[in-house]
């Protein structure tokens, strides 16, 4: 039937995927060799790879690619870590204490519409352009999913669990730490992945505008040198690190889920 979704045989699937990849890179090569743009603006894929290797071995704008990535990851870790440390407990407490929810929600909903990147000038003025400013920008990107998912997880907790905990005379602190936190874990972990993605993107944005090291800074330098191969190599590295961060969080989620499943 034309409408129902057929399952392809593995060979056919592989053939089509291969065809898709070949078409993608084929168009790229064709566009480059047809001189649709000067080679400086449109390098061919293998030139980008060569540039990637070159950037790893020779410093560009002060540092090698790895050192730029390390500087970025340090900022990422601080901003993301701060968002997790503040966002998750606050979200859980908002789920438990109604007054806190009613106080914070209107403020939070107002601030939520300011994109993280719009905080850059403000952050630079308050915390400088080295570590503090970018970290604040990353924080504003990573914070909302942490808070919302912890809050949501806490609100969805099975009431039987809470009643049992109350019957056993648990204090508010222990209910939040031992009942809500554990029950909200799946929601929190889902939030962490969204949060890390937004944090990584906000970091790039912040580094594009203010920074003197980091992978975003490398892109800007490649842009001012009008060297598209440096920019593309940097974009590739950003994509790879982003995927690695996501994989790390997924492994972390699996490790967390394992004991409760047993």
């Amino acid at each position: 039937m034309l409408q129902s979704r057929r399952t392809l045989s593995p060979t056919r699937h592989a053939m089509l995927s291969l065809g898709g990849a070949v078409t993608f890179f084929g168009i790229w090569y064709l566009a480059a060799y047809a001189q649709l743009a000067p080679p400086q603006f449109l390098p061919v894929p293998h030139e980008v790879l060569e540039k990637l290797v070159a950037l790893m071995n020779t410093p560009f704008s002060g540092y090698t690619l790895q050192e730029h990535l390390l500087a970025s990851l340090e900022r990422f870790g601080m901003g993301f870590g701060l968002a997790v440390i503040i966002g998750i407990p606050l979200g859980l407490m908002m789920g438990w204490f109604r007054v806190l929810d009613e106080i914070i929600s209107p403020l939070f909903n107002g601030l939520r519409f300011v994109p993280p990147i719009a905080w850059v000038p403000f952050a630079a003025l308050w915390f400088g352009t080295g570590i503090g400013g970018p970290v604040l920008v990353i924080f504003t990107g990573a914070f909302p999913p942490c808070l919302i998912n912890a809050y949501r997880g806490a609100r969805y907790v099975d009431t039987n669990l809470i009643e049992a905990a109350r019957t056993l005379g648990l204090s508010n602190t222990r209910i939040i730490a031992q009942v809500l936190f554990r029950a909200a874990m799946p929601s929190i972990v889902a939030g962490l992945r969204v949060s890390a993605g937004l944090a990584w993107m906000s970091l790039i944005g912040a580094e594009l505008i203010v920074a003197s090291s980091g992978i975003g800074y490398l892109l800007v330098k490649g842009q001012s040198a009008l060297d598209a191969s440096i920019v593309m190599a940097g974009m590739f590295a950003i994509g790879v690190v982003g995927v690695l961060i996501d994989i790390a969080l997924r492994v972390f989620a699996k490790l967390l889920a394992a004991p409760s499943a047993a």
Partner: protein
Amino acid sequence: MGAGSYMATAKLDTPMPQAKPGKPLMRASRRLVVGVVTLVAVGFLWWFLTRFGYISPMRLPTPGETYDAFLQIAFEGYGNATLLTHVLHSTKLVLIGFGVAVLLGVPLGLAMGASTSVEAFINPAFLFLRPIPPLAWIPLSIVWLGLGDASKIMVIFIGAFVPSVINSYTGARSLSQPLVEAAAMLGIGRLRFVLEVLIPGALPMIFTGLRLSLQAAWTTLVAGELIGAAFGLGYVLNQAAQDINIAMIVVAMIAVAIMGALMTAVLGLLEHHFMPWSKRK
């Protein structure tokens, strides 16, 4: 194809269940009162801390200075133009980039969801490009297209395209199989299948995608204008930062937030219009 982060954000906007039963009206009005009191308290705190010098005027403007900055940009203009011109310019770019992304992204997503062959063919390119955050395209767009509007539209398009594709794809995948089989059994044609089964069935997810696309479009626009532009709210932010005009920075941030909220609200109205059965307000 893992739906990944773009999907999960969609969940953040679904309505909350009431935690404890109670008188809904009482709860709602209590929420309102506490909310208003909080906002008034924060406003007072802002005024108090800045007016009496607890926070340096270099770091946070007083509410009065912020209002003056608003009047200045609204009537005299700041950074080449008045607020209205900046807003209209930003909105125009967002709508162009978003419109093109939706027109190409939604059909592509639906096709990938409806046909495994299309999915297998497109996926390699998609998997290769998707992990690159939209903002990372900004330097390349500047190398390619310069500092004008074209580079902004390109970046907005990239930002808005991915959520459109992913969510339409998920929507097409979520069609109930009996429905598809019933349509096939009744001998429906290809075009009618698309118009009467596929699109209506995928519509809730398509709208989720549109909402995420619009947010992404708005964020990438602000970033693009911050990095280099002659008009727009992001440019105002950048200009104010260069002038160390903190009151104007705050005004521009508020304007960005209001515009973002407005666009989301308009999309919500559209969603309600096209899907009157959806419960989302």
